[in-house]
């Protein structure tokens, strides 16, 4: 079925088609939007989806998941926007600023892909649920420390976990449309995560101590448990109703239990070694998210 048959195909060619035209303004801005999105666009085989082979409950489960993903991606747009304010206040280097702002644009594209995927499984054209990001704000501490702490939360921890779980999910995804969408999102998330680690390195090498003698390393160490708890909240959150059947898994879905294992692995094999290599103390991270947490229901 050509879902765009009734839609003005502006911007569509053999390599790119508008992802969620119902979410656009209907003004000349659309053409510029497509130009912007086309630059980093991977061609998605939308018509190749095998959703029709699933049962109604399986499609409903996947539709629910992709709407939750669209909500998270929409929230991430404001997350990177707020983070950009902190980086500007800290006079971050130009490449850090530009890539942070680009990440926000990437998240808009991700949200578009997620509502399109939800439409494939549900038949309904919805907009992403509204949400605005909240990042910690402590005006009295040095701007560099605030920027670094929030970069750790958003990028070093959250986005690094996102790339780990996406990489694992891609291994079991066989539906061509879902695989292409997840691959596109994954390739962006790698850059979103790398941004944080590069900025962390830069800040450690160039940062000064704050008024109370607190160093950049101290600021990073203080944020780490909050950042890990933030991601754990997402992993522990309730899921849409519906079983994750073997067929559903091939469309890019893991069970909550598997996600816990992946997060614990990410903490143990990626995050803790990375922070330790940069001299950031990791406290009780390995105990807090070890085997006991991973196997909890």
């Amino acid at each position, binding site marked *: 079925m050509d879902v765009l048959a009734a839609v003005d195909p502006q911007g569509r060619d053999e390599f790119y088609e508008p992802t969620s035209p119902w979410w656009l303004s209907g003004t000349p801005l659309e053409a510029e939007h497509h130009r912007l999105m086309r630059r980093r666009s991977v061609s998605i085989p939308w018509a190749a989806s095998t959703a029709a082979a699933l049962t109604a409950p399986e499609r409903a489960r996947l539709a629910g998941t992709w709407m939750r993903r669209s909500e998270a991606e929409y929230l991430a747009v404001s*997350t990177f926007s707020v983070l950009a304010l902190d980086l500007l206040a800290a006079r971050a280097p130009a490449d850090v600023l530009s890539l942070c702002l680009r990440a926000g644009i990437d998240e808009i594209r991700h949200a578009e892909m997620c509502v399109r995927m939800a439409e494939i499984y549900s038949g309904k054209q919805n907009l992403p649920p509204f949400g605005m990001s*909240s990042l910690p704000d402590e005006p009295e501490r040095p701007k560099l420390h605030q920027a670094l702490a929030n970069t750790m939360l958003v990028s070093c921890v959250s986005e690094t976990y996102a790339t*780990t*779980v996406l*990489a694992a999910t891609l291994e079991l995804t066989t539906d061509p449309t879902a695989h292409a969408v997840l691959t596109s999102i994954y390739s962006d998330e790698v850059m979103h995560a790398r941004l944080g*680690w*590069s900025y962390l390195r830069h800040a450690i090498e160039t940062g000064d101590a704050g008024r109370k003698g607190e160093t950049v390393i101290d600021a990073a160490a203080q944020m780490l448990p909050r950042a890990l*708890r933030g991601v754990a909240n997402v992993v522990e959150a309730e899921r849409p109703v519906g079983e994750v059947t073997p067929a559903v898994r091939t469309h890019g879905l893991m069970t909550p239990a598997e996600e816990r294992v992946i997060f614990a692995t990410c903490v143990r094999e990626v995050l803790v*070694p990375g922070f330790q290599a940069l001299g950031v103390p990791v406290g009780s991270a390995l105990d807090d998210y070890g085997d006991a947490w991973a196997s909890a229901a």
Partner: protein
Amino acid sequence: MAKHRELANIVFATTLGHTSASKIWRTVVFAGAMLVMPLAAGCGSRNKPAPLEPMPVTRTEPAPTEAEQDAKAAESKAAEDKAAAEAEAMAEQEAADKAAADAAAKEIAAKETADREAAAAEAAKKPRPRTTKARPTGRGFILS
């Protein structure tokens, strides 16, 4: 058969995430944080090239007579005395100018410091635009 399936599940569970974690360690953390390079304090400095020494200038002239030499010597001495007096006067003037400039620069620097501190104190009172006291939530990628 059920035992084999159970074993496969256990193996899968213990290996789940290892391959992806290894990939992310290499592509994200190791590459992003440049872990192959040791941490250094401060920005790197480039070696400045050594300044070039000026080329020596040589001239050739015919040898002078004794009278010419005496006249020249007297002329030179007068010129030297005049130059020395002028140099002394210039040095005094320069010292006075420098003292005045230093005093002015100190005044300006003190004022700028005071302005900066006042602005920082004012900015410290204001929260960041769109701030909230709500507990932060990790973003993460929603899997299911």
